[in-house]
């Protein structure tokens, strides 16, 4: 099989590790070679978090011009990593900004991202914006954004895995009391993408 490389990006604390773990466990069950990278330590403290995913290959790093997909939990972070993309990259982006501490304090600006997105969408053909926060809240918790994004990515068929395979892996990893919220979040993300395709 041809390698599939991707990137999941966002801000420390958004639950990116769970996203890649669910995907990885689902691959393991389906006997698909998988390797991902995780961010631990100081960088987690509100910093930029990137996690590389590689299916059918060996490298735990998705570098310049390599990504088949980029899942961004935050719009500015999607823009930060565009150099990793290629013309045919699929982008799935949660559209709600998370302001850096310096912006909240007033010592830095969070720019209007629209002009950047215009430039970006005129080059890439597959940029999908998701109302991530709204869907996560609808599911019952803003913390379920990661499963909204996983559902959305699954609907775009960027992994060679179907909804059932990912849902099964998700439920196995999560404690039972979180099943309902996360399942709903996954399906809201999944159905949102299906509705706009």
């Amino acid at each position, binding site marked *: 099989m041809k390698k599939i490389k991707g990137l999941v990006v966002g801000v420390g604390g958004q639950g990116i590790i769970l996203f890649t773990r669910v995907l990885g466990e689902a691959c393991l069950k389906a006997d698909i070679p998988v390797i991902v990278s995780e961010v631990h330590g100081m960088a987690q403290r509100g910093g930029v978090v990137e996690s590389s995913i590689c299916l059918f290959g060996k490298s735990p790093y998705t570098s310049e011009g*390599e990504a088949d997909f980029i899942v961004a939990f935050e719009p500015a972070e999607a823009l930060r990593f565009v150099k990793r993309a290629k013309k045919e990259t699929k982008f799935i982006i949660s559209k709600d900004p998370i302001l850096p501490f310096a912006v909240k304090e007033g010592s830095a600006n969070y720019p209007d991202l629209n002009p950047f997105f215009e430039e970006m969408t005129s080059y890439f053909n597959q940029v999908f914006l998701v109302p991530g926060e709204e869907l996560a809240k609808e599911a019952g918790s803003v913390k379920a954004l990661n499963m909204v994004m996983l559902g959305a990515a699954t609907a775009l068929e960027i992994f060679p895995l179907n909804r059932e395979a990912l849902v099964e892996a998700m439920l196995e990893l999560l404690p039972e009391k979180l099943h309902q919220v996360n399942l709903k979040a996954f399906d809201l993300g999944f159905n949102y993408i299906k509705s706009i395709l």
Partner: protein
Amino acid sequence: MHPILKGDNCKKFLLGNEAIVRGAVESRVQVGAAYPGTPSSEIGNNLFQMQKDLSGLYFEFAVNEKVAMEIVGAASACGLRSITCMKHVGLNVASDAFMSLAYVGVEGGLVVVTADDPSCHSSQNEQDNRYYAKLAQVPMLEAFDPHTAYVLTKEAFSLSEKFKLPVLLRTTTRVSHARGVVEVGAIPFDFYTTFKKGFFKKDPFRFVPVPAVARKQHKLLLEKLEELQNLASSFNFNQFIPKGKLGICASGVAVNYVIDALEDLGLQDEVSLLILTFTHPFPEKLALEFLSQVETCVVVEELEPYLEENLRALAYTHGLKTKILGKKEKLLPRYFEFTPTQVKEALANAFNLKRFTVEVPPFDFSDKLPARPPVLCQGCPHRETYKLIKEVLQEMGIEERTIYPTDIGCYTLGIQPPLNMADYLLCMGSSVGTPCGFDVATDQRVVAFIGDSTFFHAGLSPLVNAKFNKHNFTLVVLDNDTTAMTGHQPVPSQTIKSPIIQDHPTIPIQKIVEALDIPYVVINPYKKEEAKELIQPLLEKQELSVIIAKAPCILYKTKSQKGS
């Protein structure tokens, strides 16, 4: 049951560090000791937690890496398999013990994990610890993904026991923090039902390296190395894959980038590969076979040209004309992690593939986007301490001239505006040693910051030095009840304890300061005005003093209240 222990003879999706733990437990490791440090921390964290499930396993968080090394050295001398793990700079701290351990040797297998950090993801430098194997003259294995981390851990235990030497197992961040598929064996639960004590057979003319013993032991060590050198060439996980006249030698995470790049470039059937995991002593016989069969050899390894130097020396010794390309030619840099694209480009370059280019989007927004430097958490007590001390010094009119030596922990983030309260840092404990020098060299006020865990790690002896040699500065100990940055490991002064060590005593920092007869105050950083009044007299006096800012890390407090 601990998730790493679940499942026998199956495939698991494990972090590199978890794979090491699994390999160690399958190898019947009995004693572990470590000081936490990213990217090695999850090894210690998991062994610590696993004691609940395995009565036959003992693990402790030691106050520093040197103490940890001494603990496992002694345990291994009693015949028990032991493990310690540390970040690369941790081995600097443990090096004194490590160097002598090579001379006196071990009985039970002893594995020393060093997790290096190319690109300084969470470190003050990116030193290449492979040279420690050469310096200490011990065998070294290098993992390149979670599965090899698992396999090599098991190999390391038997190698160590066979040669009665500690084995250095080297990973990097991109191996320790990669999660991949690992084919595991079985956990020997029967072995772990009780802790089986060993026995220390006295042999002072081996275990006490006075000069006469050390001289004898060094010769013995060099003899072992010769034997190990032969073994390295036939080691199962050192692979020579002969193909064409172009060749690549690689180790570490770069192995993956090479394999993927060859596939992308369509060269997988043309290029000969020398993939090395047993890299000290250098597998000369195998490397010679490889060098004799290729015309060009590209060396792909992160950081220092360790393999490259060995290959060049070998080629010279044997009069080979093989063209060796690496760091010397600046084909790849000696700094930072590699990226797959970078390796692909370097290989295309070295093999003169002119048509190859990587297409990247023609725009870059990164300098127009807000930066997200890691910051102190909302409500973090460190921020409050920094703010109130700054205010007192401002009121005294000396804030701008005050020098703030800092140390290693979350509080190093005091470097960020608006605090700007981190001026000088070398290593763990340097916030207490360097003020002794500043005190001699300048009249500026010195207010130094150190965390509780770092204080116990390397701050005690310099504080004694400061008192004895009459140095004047103020040391602020940020006592937040835990080792926060690396994931809330225990600290001797903590009052909120993990259930695993519930019966361990608390060693209050103020009692140590009292014993040294140094003036001190204990403040609650959230009570700003009260705290300012307490510290003002100390800061006004030009003498050695200590401020203990006591308030638990908010994340740790929340976590322990939830009972996790």
